[in-house]
């Protein structure tokens, strides 16, 4: 009896299906990651600066070019394009992502950064440690990239219509990213939305014994009604509204007003002396607050330990 040798030629339909499934999966990963960044381009620009990738100081331009490339490649992969001129830049992009997450992992392991400074390739939507980011990227990107190379057939004529569609959709996605900061997407683009518990708003991963969640920082939030404003204490709209916030705060007995800030101790001190707030100002870790907003100020209502309402500005109209 003879056994049939393993055959990976394109003539084997399952191999071709596997290759197409892998390329579509990889494309979806690219698109989900790009969506997270497109909804909050300001954070992405900040991240590019933090990673020192803002070539010639053009962080915004770099961010939009990177986003455009990721979206275009994602769309090409999702539509099943497995030409060398798609897979070659895809492999380069995957290598670049792995370089970033691997570098963050190395820095973390050597005590140069803390675990909250992971690569935010998925924007503010996911909370990943450097270790998690590296291993997830490895599995989510490298494995499908490898599989996408199998079962490729001959490259035919240039798929002009598909490329035109990809170009149009990429341009539309970039316009969306450009306009996103003004669109009411805060609940979608951040981890702060109605239904989230204050014990779920944390800095650090669950495995980290130093993980700090909002309910541990401010135990008052577990009971009663609290309006919370996220602020850097220096936004003009916030400073202008301080007298109104003071007035509202002193007139309330059932609802307490809090400011959560990652501003420096000096900035908090200056604010206390110059504004004399009638409300509580609580310092909180940057890693806890940054995933909660696209821009400041942003506000939310906490009732008995749960976020019940969010406002993309100060809650003055809610008072």
């Amino acid at each position, binding site marked *: 009896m003879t056994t049939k040798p393993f055959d990976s030629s394109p003539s084997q339909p399952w191999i071709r299906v596997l290759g197409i499934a892998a390329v579509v999966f990889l494309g979806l990963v690219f698109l989900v990651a790009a969506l997270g960044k497109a909804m909050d381009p300001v954070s992405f620009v900040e991240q590019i600066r933090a990673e020192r990738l803002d070539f010639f100081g053009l962080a915004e331009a770099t961010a939009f070019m990177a986003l455009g490339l990721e979206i275009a490649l994602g769309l090409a992969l999702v539509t099943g394009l497995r030409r060398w001129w798609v897979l070659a830049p895809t492999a380069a992009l995957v290598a670049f992502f792995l370089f970033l997450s691997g570098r963050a992992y190395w820095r973390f392991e050597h005590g140069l950064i803390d675990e909250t400074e992971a690569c935010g390739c998925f924007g503010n939507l996911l909370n990943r440690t450097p270790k998690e980011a590296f291993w997830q990227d490895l599995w989510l990107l490298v494995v499908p990239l490898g599989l996408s190379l199998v079962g490729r057939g001959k490259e035919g004529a240039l798929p002009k219509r598909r490329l035109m569609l990809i170009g149009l959709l990429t341009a539309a996605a970039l316009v969306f990213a450009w306009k996103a900061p003004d669109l009411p997407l805060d609940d979608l683009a951040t981890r702060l939305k109605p239904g989230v518990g204050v014990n779920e708003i944390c800095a650090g991963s669950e495995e980290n014994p*130093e993980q700090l969640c909002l309910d*541990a920082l401010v135990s008052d939030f577990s009971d009663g009604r609290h309006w919370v404003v996220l602020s850097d204490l220096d936004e003009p709209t916030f400073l202008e509204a301080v007298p109104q916030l003071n007035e509202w705060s002193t007139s309330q007995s059932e609802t307490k007003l809090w400011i959560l800030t990652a501003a420096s*101790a000096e900035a908090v001190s200056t604010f206390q002396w*110059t504004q004399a707030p*009638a409300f509580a100002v*609580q310092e909180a870790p940057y890693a806890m607050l940054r995933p909660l907003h696209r821009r400041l100020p942003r506000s939310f209502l906490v009732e008995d330990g749960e976020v019940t309402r969010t406002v993309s500005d100060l809650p003055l109209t809610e008072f």
Partner: protein
Amino acid sequence: MRRVLGYRKSFLIRTTRPLRKPLGGALCAAAAALLLVTMTADPLLAAGPPIFGFESVGFEVTLNGKELKGAEVYQAEAAGAFLILSEELAAPVLLRLRDGQVETLNLMKVNHNSNGSVDVLAGATLAAQGGFQVNADRTGVVFMVDTQTVEMKEKPPLLGSQQAAGLKAYDPHYERTAEAYSPSDPIVEKLREQDKDVKVSVFFGTWCGACKQMVPRIMAVADRLEGSKITFDFYGLPPGIAGDPEAGRMGIQAVPTGVVFVDGKEAGRISGNGWRVPELAINNLLVNGQS
């Protein structure tokens, strides 16, 4: 507890007695009296509104660069005001931060309440002293009172080994927040019953915002465990932590951190979410070795 700023009510005096004499002479006399009062009145004097609910806060006061020992500083957060009482100052000093004003007032209008809070009563005569400036290191304000320079500022960080009483004396906020926290009775009972020698060293910074929320909780636990085999020590660190040799020796990288020693050996640490219920974190460390 929300403190409320009160407002002085104006009084309207009416007379119902019919006037029998011509008004001319009386009006002239009243006008003359008013003119006299206006000419002789100090333009810097005014009758102030009442301000309720000043609470003791941990600030120090200097007069011409010399610390005023025994000076009491109170804050009415709702009113955005501070009140300074000291025997070495001619009169109580009222700082109204939102108006940018410093005033002195008559001591008779300062009322001490049984709960330790202080009120400024209605009708206090306020003598304007001018404005104030935030000091160079932004830890307080500088102003003039009767040609003397007064500075009110945060105390220097509390450093080294302390007892809970030391923290309470440093800033009454610690005591008020500790009183507001109720440790779990069953856990406290369990901790009281355990027979090992346990020491909890709490590393903290008086400059650290999170410590002001978390450290009072373990102070409340310490109060409840007084007389048990569990003792507490509070170790104040300077801003930046790194320069402190004890923090270096213990590998403290963030505050607050509680180090639990059982029979002289470190059993574990309280950090992050362990501060939610510190008595539970101590118990977990004693039972499971994890907070």
